[in-house]
């Protein structure tokens, strides 16, 4: 499957960045994230309580949110396990992050060469891992129907606060993630159709571009 996908992309003069499996996994996580953010915000701030209507009202929002959360965690766990080896921080990534000014101003030529992921993407990866673990742990403690009564009240209170904090960080991180995809043209296509042009790979992920060229049928 992977062989043919990569070979097919190459035949069309393109480079395969995400397999169909990876894309599916990504978009399941994305859909669950949107559902969780909307239902979570409904329960977080009265200004957003109307969003509960999207889920069939307050009680249904309360019922569904934690189950969708568990689904998101499981899908993300698979995704993160597959991505782990591509997201180890290097000295170049640290330099890339220090040069955030050049990144923001599209002065990519001044930045160190980037592998499959740049420093910012790797940072996002770790932020997501920490947030998802935190959200799962705190979410279980505050899941009144099945779990809260196993925990002392101070733990439920702490979990409620931390759940909001992790969710806040996650939502901000995902806003940045979505914006980056809109900003760096060709990224959305990579995650929707799986492929990028050689020029895109050369410009944004040169080390990965060279590495992929060496592998006969992609990775």
């Amino acid at each position, binding site marked *: 499957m992977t062989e043919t996908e990569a070979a097919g992309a190459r035949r069309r003069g393109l480079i395969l960045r995400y397999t169909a499996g990876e894309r599916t996994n990504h978009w399941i996580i994305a859909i669950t994230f949107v559902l969780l953010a909307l239902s979570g915000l*409904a*329960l*977080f*701030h*009265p*200004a957003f*309580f109307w969003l*509960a209507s999207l889920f069939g*009202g*307050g*009680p249904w*929002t*309360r019922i569904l949110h934690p189950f969708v959360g568990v689904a998101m965690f499981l899908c993300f766990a698979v995704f993160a396990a597959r991505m782990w080896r591509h997201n180890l921080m290097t000295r170049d990534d640290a330099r890339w992050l220090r040069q955030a000014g050049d990144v*923001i*101003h*599209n002065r*990519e030529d001044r930045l160190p060469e980037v592998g499959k992921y740049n420093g910012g993407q790797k940072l996002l990866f770790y932020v997501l891992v920490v947030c998802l673990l935190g959200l799962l742990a705190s979410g279980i403690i*505050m899941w*009144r*129907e099945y779990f*809260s009564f196993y925990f002392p*009240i*101070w733990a*439920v*209170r*702490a979990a*409620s*606060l931390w759940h*909001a*904090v992790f969710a*806040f960080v996650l*939502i*901000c991180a995902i*806003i*940045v993630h*979505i*914006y980056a995809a*809109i*900003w*760096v*043209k*060709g990224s959305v296509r990579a995650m929707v159709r799986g492929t990028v*042009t*050689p*020029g*895109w*790979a*050369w*410009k*944004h992920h040169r080390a990965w*571009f*060279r590495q992929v*060229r*060496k592998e006969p049928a992609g990775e």
Partner: protein
Amino acid sequence: MSMQSLDIKRRSATTTPPPGVREPVVAGGVAKLIDVSKCIGCKACQTACMEWNDLRDEVGHAVGVYDNPADLTENSWTVMRFSELENEQGDLEWLIRKDGCMHCEDPGCLKACPSPGAIVQYTNGIVDFHEENCIGCGYCITGCPFNVPRISKKDHKAYKCTLCSDRVAVGQEPACVKTCPTGAIVFGTKEDMTQHAAERIDDLKSRGYENAGLYDPQGVGGTHVMYVLHHADRPGLYHGLPQDPQISPMVAFWKGLAKPLGVAAMALTALAGFFHYVRVGPNEVDEEDERKAEEEMRHD
């Protein structure tokens, strides 16, 4: 329950003020005063509560103490708590406290509730759950400093003592007050109850209870259910009545500053992205990049 005849002072998950044109006649609101020193532990108040509110708890098991049922439940909104104390003189004191909602002036349940109008506080101080708006999340339990609300396993709604808001609305005292055979529970304006408590405390002091006092904890802005305690210096003796209850700082931050700050920061993050696009613009791959990539591929 919705009571049109009672004016609303606070409403859960509502950021605009409730209708407030009518000034409350009694500024301090109402209060129930429970004189622990007069209580004989007969549980008539529990029965009256069941009767008036049409509640029947499941028949449970004896757990070796007089408390029956053993805890507050969605069907038992008040429970007599029996504590045995061996005092300094070596005598036994049987401390009996009627447990239930304290009707805090600053209610932690209402602060924590995410569902608009599921919890209200009337201008007379009564804190009431409107179960038709309850979503069953249990945040009221998280917010309560007294461990009072209970969620029904059947309908997943939160329940607690209403201070008989329906009776009070039509000029009657709560059912527990009406039935108490020793006059240990009295009801009136908070001012009158405080005054009455002072007389009771004087009496208790004259009979050797030098630490007698009123339990009206200021950490939650005072309560609309108050106790006269013989050992007001040690409320913990009465089945763990908290010494200085207040809304937990974690709940206060979660349901206070965190809400506007969090929403503002999320909105600003999105705005920052939008204006970056407007000012700096997209990062695009041009012909030159494609050509260089081609060139490099040819060398492979």
